[in-house]
């Protein structure tokens, strides 16, 4: 038993790197998605529905890349997770507000 608990040591640097990798891939993809939704609403009135979504999608790749880079630049994996979740929630709230304003 002690062998396994030694092996699966969740505060070992390897697990923390793995945690960041997961954050970068999935929380980063979530951010790319929420940013698409956000730009789709933000630009809705100025350029129209379809182009707004298209611009949001075109921008989502650089945003994804920056999110992934940011995950690996902060001091701890925990900070990376919390930061990305916060950003996702904030973008969702703004998107929701814009939906209300646009309708």
């Amino acid at each position, binding site marked *: 038993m002690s062998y396994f608990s030694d092996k699966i040591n969740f505060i070992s640097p390897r697990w923390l790197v793995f945690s960041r990798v997961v954050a970068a891939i999935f929380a980063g993809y979530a951010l790319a*998605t929420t940013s*698409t939704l956000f730009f789709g609403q933000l630009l809705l009135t100025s350029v129209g529905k379809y182009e707004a*979504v*298209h611009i*949001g999608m075109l921008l989502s*790749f650089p945003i994804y*890349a920056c999110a992934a*880079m940011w995950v*690996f630049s902060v001091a701890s994996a925990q900070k990376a997770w919390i930061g990305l979740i916060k950003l996702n929630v904030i973008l969702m709230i703004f998107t929701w507000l814009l939906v209300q304003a646009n309708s």
Partner: protein
Amino acid sequence: MKSTFRQSMKWLHTWVGLVVVWILFFMFITGTAGYFYKEITRWMEPERPLISPEVSKKQMLHLSQAYLTEHASEAERWRIQLPNSRDGNLRVRWTQAAKEGKRRGKRTHKILNPTTGQEVAELRATGGGFSLYRMHYRLHYMPRLVAYWIVGFCTMLMLIAVITGVIFHKKIFSDFFTFRAKKGLIGWLDIHNVLSVVALPFHFMITYSGLIFFLTTYMVLGFNLSLTDSQQDEFHKQVFPDTLAVEQAEIAQTLAPLTDMYLQTRKYWLEDTLDNVTIKYPNDVNASVNFERLETDITYNHSDEIFFNSNGKLMTVPAREFTPSGRIEDGFISLHEGQFANSVVRWLYLLVGLIGAAMVASGGILWTTKRKPKQDKKPNGADFGYRLVEQLNIGSFVGLPIAIGVYFCANRLLPVGLENRADWEINCLFISWALLLVYPAFRPAISAWLEQLKLAAVIFTFIPVLNFLTTDKHLAITLPIGDWNYAGFDLAMIAIGMSFSFAAYKVKQRIVSQVGNKSITSAVSKASTAKLAQNKGAM
């Protein structure tokens, strides 16, 4: 990750690069070959005639229309591709109406003799250059979507590698001018830097445009959450408008002669650069005929197309109105594909594509070079991970080119009547690559490098010889005629073979100098022990 932002980015660059280096190398090499896929296909179909004789475009259109009327009167769509500098063949293609439950109808493709208007004799079945080109985004032996996601993942990591590379590199432009032609770590570092910086705009463009090729596949979640199914159809129409939507009227009518329409286009286009003609519903009263000339712009240009109706009357078709973002995407995709490129620009594409492949490869070699001194000192030999990277480096950076050489040889050597011949050509490629990936596990790294480089040199130099032995379209024939497309392939193979010979020579030189150093040091140590013994004796 690390104490400073820059150090973290350096760490990320290293590991992100290592994860995808071999797939990226594969994508760069096959994609770069793709810039010449028509020329490669031409070489792989040696039954095709050499240069087509001088026949006017008018005559070829006449013959093609006669052929299509006779053989494809039921088709929904015809396409006539006139010979051009890249592919000297007159090609006709047609699509039948889609059967129930099918998305597309059956498509047929024939090459016509431009003088007689008859089909050219059966060609050997081959994947040609197109199969190589297709692999770079479609991979092989796996479902389409799986391949797209693997490729997308690797491309995304490439984008991160490009950005982090620029960030952590302090003196990017001054370093570009300090190339130290030295061996070992500093030499490889400088090579990697120069290759990255010299074509940086290309690296960025090719990566980002590669991602937006599959925009709605990769960003599927945001796309589906933003738009409903019917809105998605409208999205495609708005962002990338189609040329002209015609509906079949189901009233039969014979199409007016294409030759007359061709004469009309000559009034609008000063130069005779007509490239292809597409006919929708050729036997319907609502037929539409689209004359297209060679692309003149990187993005869509309305004046490259002229439309006619079934009576051969000019139709005014409004220009396709891209949204600004649609035009940006169109521009990126066009830059990625390089369809607009003339022959000079096409060679430039080849050059920067190879620089990209070399950048990726030098990055992989840099990873091992940096760790080599430490690994060499380990009492139980190098770590498994280090050995694996070393083997995959050798097996990919030299092994893949050899495998592509094998693909070309297979085209000449597999029996023409073999069943699934085109598939077997590709199987030959992947079987030989697999063997070459395994081979370095059984050899010391430096010997594996040398042996595979030698093999590559032999194979590529052998390809023109094989062509000489198996076909009547070898250099002794193609050079005097001046068929540069065909001769160019053989000459390029010789050039690649010579490059590999040079690389093998350099590696061999290094082995010799290392062995030389060792024997000197051992001689010195022997001499010193002898001296020591003498001293002892004297004492």
